[in-house]
């Protein structure tokens, strides 16, 4: 299976200096930004809408549509979400670290399109090197006159600030990110307002886009919408970046065309399961996505619609593969513990519920499970995510709480025997376990 390199072309072809301005300019850089300055907002928004570019942060929303929701109040802001913290996701890291000018180029386009004169990149605190590389690139861009007052000799001013987070998963949620950027506690805001485009940073219209989304813009502007749509498979345009991790032979980041099946991705692209083991399950789109299993999902196409229709999501593009050596109760516990630890603590169901779920899973693992624990897991989950539906009907302010429910759903649905096996070891389960 061949990869399709657009966003990652430069870093693959010029691995030693793809992050420098010199290399970026030598490979056609900043032409997109220059071109955007000659076009109107409507024009640019229309262009991105037409391209079919889908946000790559996880929600899978049309980028152009998001831009068109921009409220008329000014000033407006552009915020790039580089808080790539969904477990298993590491694609933005590479884009930040190895092609920062591509991002800045895209940010200029997005800022111009949305009439923003101040843009921010919020990078997760665990990414010091990507932040350093980007900051270096920003300095280069300022020095070259691509940022600051009158960019590229035009009368358009644009400031760009790189901000390093302090290590909270929740700050990847766009409204928590905005709170954090404002210096408040990183807690998601109440919805409505549903879109920061209406009320965002400092309660002013704000476009929040993912690093990968923005990195696509220079290519759309320079190579055209038709080229971009030409890469499409069905409704999915452009390429997609995926981070494959877990029990595969070739884990890593891949930029791929749409239309592959999971079988092709796992066995061809990622080289199959390690040590000749058997594939047991995989998480198709970041830790919060419901699990897929081979006998039901292996030959599904990797598209947004197909994945959604099968009760999961492509999310942040992270695929975590688990082979048959995996204790699925332990896997679920590890995932739930992550969400319990990363809960911001603002709303009750998430703060109390995720920790409780983790405690139940832990006692099952510790051989102290009880007969009622499976039902209890489901009922506590139901109080976080009503009806255990997909997409979740959450009782929480943001989707973090329901994210802890996804592994439990996968565990109960596909691996009930593994729960039973653990319970059988427990003297408290009534299953006559070992004393």
């Amino acid at each position: 299976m061949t990869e399709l390199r657009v966003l990652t072309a430069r870093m693959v072809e010029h691995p030693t200096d793809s992050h420098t301005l010199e290399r970026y300019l030598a490979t056609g850089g900043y032409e997109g930004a220059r071109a955007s300055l000659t076009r109107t907002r409507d024009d640019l928004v229309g262009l991105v809408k037409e391209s079919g570019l889908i946000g790559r942060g996880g929600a899978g929303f049309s980028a152009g549509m998001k831009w068109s929701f921009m409220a008329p109040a000014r000033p407006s802001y552009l915020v790039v979400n580089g808080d790539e913290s969904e477990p298993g996701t590491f694609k933005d890291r590479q884009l930040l670290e190895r092609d920062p000018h591509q991002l800045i180029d895209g940010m200029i386009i997005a800022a111009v399109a949305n009439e923003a004169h101040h843009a921010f990149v919020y990078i997760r605190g665990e990414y010091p090197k990507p932040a350093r590389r980007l900051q270096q690139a920003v300095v280069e861009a300022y020095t070259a006159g691509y940022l600051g007052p009158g960019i590229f000799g035009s009368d358009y001013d644009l400031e760009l600030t790189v901000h390093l987070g302090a290590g909270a998963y929740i700050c990847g949620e766009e409204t928590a990110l905005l709170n954090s950027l404002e210096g408040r506690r990183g807690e998601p805001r109440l919805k409505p307002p549903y879109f920061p485009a209406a009320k965002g940073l400092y309660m002013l219209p704000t476009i929040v886009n993912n690093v990968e989304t923005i990195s696509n813009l220079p290519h759309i502007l320079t190579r055209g919408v038709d080229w971009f749509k030409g890469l499409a498979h069905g409704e999915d345009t452009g390429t997609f970046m995926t981070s494959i991790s877990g029990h595969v032979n070739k884990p890593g980041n891949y930029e791929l065309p749409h239309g592959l099946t999971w079988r092709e991705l796992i066995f061809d692209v990622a080289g199959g399961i390690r040590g000749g083991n058997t594939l047991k399950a995989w998480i198709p789109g970041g830790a919060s996505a419901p699990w897929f299993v081979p006998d039901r999902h292996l030959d599904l196409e990797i598209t947004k619609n197909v994945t959604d229709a099968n009760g999961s999501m492509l999310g942040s593009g992270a695929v975590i593969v688990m082979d048959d050596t995996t204790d699925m109760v332990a896997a679920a516990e590890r995932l739930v513990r992550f969400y319990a630890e990363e809960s911001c603590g603002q709303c009750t169901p998430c703060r109390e519920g995720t920790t409780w779920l983790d405690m139940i899973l832990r006692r099952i693992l510790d051989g102290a499970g009880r007969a009622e624990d499976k039902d209890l897991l489901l009922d506590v989950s139901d109080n976080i995510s009503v009806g255990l539906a997909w997409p979740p009907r959450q009782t929480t302010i943001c989707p973090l709480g329901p994210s802890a429910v996804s592994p439990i759903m996968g565990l109960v649905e596909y691996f009930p025997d593994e729960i039973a096996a653990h319970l059988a070891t427990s003297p408290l389960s009534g299953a006559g376990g070992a004393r």
Partner: protein
Amino acid sequence: MSEQVTITLDGVECLVDPGQMLIAAAEQAGTHIPRFCWHPRLKEVGMCRQCFVEVEGPRGVMMVPSCTQPVADGMVVHTKTPAVKKAQEGILEFLLINHPLDCPICDKGGECPLQDQTLSHGPGESRFVEEKRHYVKPIPVSDLVLLDRERCILCARCVRFADEISGDPLIEFADRGNETQVTTFPDQPFSSYFSGNTVQICPVGALTATAYRFRARPWDLREAASVNPGTTAGDSVTIQASRDELIRVLGVDNDATNHGWLDDRSRFGFQWVTSPDRLRRPLVRGADGTFHAASWGEAVATVAEQLRGVIDDHGPGAVAAIGGARGTNEDAYTLARFMRSVIGSPHLDARLDDALGSRFLATLAGRGRIGDLEKARTILLWGPDLKEEHPTLYLRVRRAAQELGATLIVVHPRATGLDDRATHRFTYVPGSGWDTLSALMAGEGEFAAARAALGEGPVVTIVDQTGLVEDPLLAEAVAAFTRDLPGAGVLPLARRANTYGALDMGVAPDLLPGRVPTSGAAIEAWGDADLSEGLDTRGILEAAVAGRVKALLLVGADPLRDVPDADLARRAVEGADFVVAIDCFLTDSSSVADVILPAAGFGEKEGTVTNLEGRVQKVNALVPPPGQARADWSILDDISTRLGRPMGLQSALAISREISAVAPAYRGVTWFLLDWKERDGVVVPTDSGEQPLQYVPVAPADPTPTKSPRGATFALHLSRTLYDDAVLTRQAPALAGLAGGGFAGLNPADVKRIRADQAVTVEGHRLPVIVDPSLAPGTIHVPFNQPGGPLFAAGAVVRVEAVEAEALDA
């Protein structure tokens, strides 16, 4: 208010006000939706998730928190479906899993929303078998408030109150997830003047007040409606008692006054009522110069005999009364009648030489209301630091500027608690206020924007002396200027809760009951009386020093502590031939009296009080007075009988009827009306036809040239603070240690100029120096009546000298 909207609530169509959240609308329609974080006076945060309801929408039935869902016309809402019940019970279970359930030893038990809701629809058994969260409990977050983090359900009511309402964001959440906890910042206690409110609004027993912990169970409390005796704003409160002992004061949400909030002095200050130092029996100074406990008969006979002697020898004008602003209107009316008709002297004053003119305060034409702040475009505050002296009013002004978008102009000699919300801020050297006013009126220079803002009404002006020794006519001049501004309302301020009531009742040298001028028509009920204009407090004190006033009646007044010129007060009280004090305590002043008559205090007597708007409210008796203490009116009535001119007063209720008959402004203001119909009080008119007095403030004159202080002579800014060394604060254990202590604030340039980096003497009294860059050079700021602080002959200008380095060690 725009037109009401129709919603269908559990199948019933209801009309509700628009623009509110569903939870409030449902409440309006009579349906209580359970909640913890939502509070009508705080911004909604949707954190606890307890208030889920189902709303029918275009995309089907949606489960939404009703506290963040704005109500809309035609909305169909279900609050009792199985799905709603499941969600609400699920949240309640989540809140309970880490709650310690130590209700039997929790102060909140019996009045706890968490407990109530658990009883009404919580699970009988817990499914949570793990170890709960544990914290050290409780930890003090301030001198008055303790925090139990195990009980806390993290609703952020306290955090939001401190941030949104009081403007002291000193408590916050720390950590995250399951370890989220309320905390103070390192080395920064929650030392807010309003900390007690967080205890009142805490929906569990996480925040408790040191003053109330383990003192009572809610079901053992009796309660009564009353009015905050701590400020002139007339804040509504509920007073509660257990075993005939006053034990707690709670704020009551009243749109007209305090919105339910209280400052900590008002909330905890009631403790003086239960002080063991309260006077329980009359004290009479014997021939040996010491007090002995006397019977009421002996004490009253002594008083009558002495007063008779003074009247016989020197005429009734040799008797004067000071005080009366701390009691009820009924007490004050009795005092006015006693002085003018029983004694026949016009020398009486409820003000303690620290207030604006009595006619100005009582009968100002164009007086505004506190509620005017809600719709004000511009607010001019030219008076004391409201945070220190009128804290509940401070909250209303803060809200107007912060939440309602009013332009706030603050004029004061130094930084104030409202500066962070002020659009325009001006300081001046005390004494040069007239120049500042002229410049503001002319809109010159830096005043241009503020003057322009004053052209945008409605304008509310809050005026008083900025400091205790400032020319009161300046405040009048400010009022005279602003009363002609568009939509103007003026709120003049005074110290001591019932000053306005006392003035309205005629406890003033130039007023008769009901805002009638002296030398007006005779008062039939009073018979033969002196209705001429008498001396004010300063005049009385000077006359006492000069020997013209021989007998002094102090009614709940401690002039030695309260009159700015403490030296004058001392010479007057010590120099008078006969001093009788009606008081609750042995104060600096009453302890030099000849007879002390023990008075009933707050919560011990019934009556009415009048606030700064002229709002009359009812206060009620809940506990008996200690020992033989009695209400002022009944003491004065006894003395009148003994003097052979009995007033014949039977009860406070009877007096209230007499007030209605005698005082034009109070016609129709009956206890029945206040008890049953107008629970928020009624504002008595300032311009009734029968009440000929309407005071127009002194118009601003050309600025009188003021000498800018030179050398080591400074203009004095003598300010009141919330906590000081006044007897009622000292006698409340919760507040006793909170006064900041005396100091001298100086501009850094002055500190350098007179080389006073550590201590100075002010009129010979030594004070530590605090550098205060907000003061203009040439100003010295001294807080009044501080523990260990000096009481001196405070004048507009004082002599200041640096204390030499070697003397510092002494």
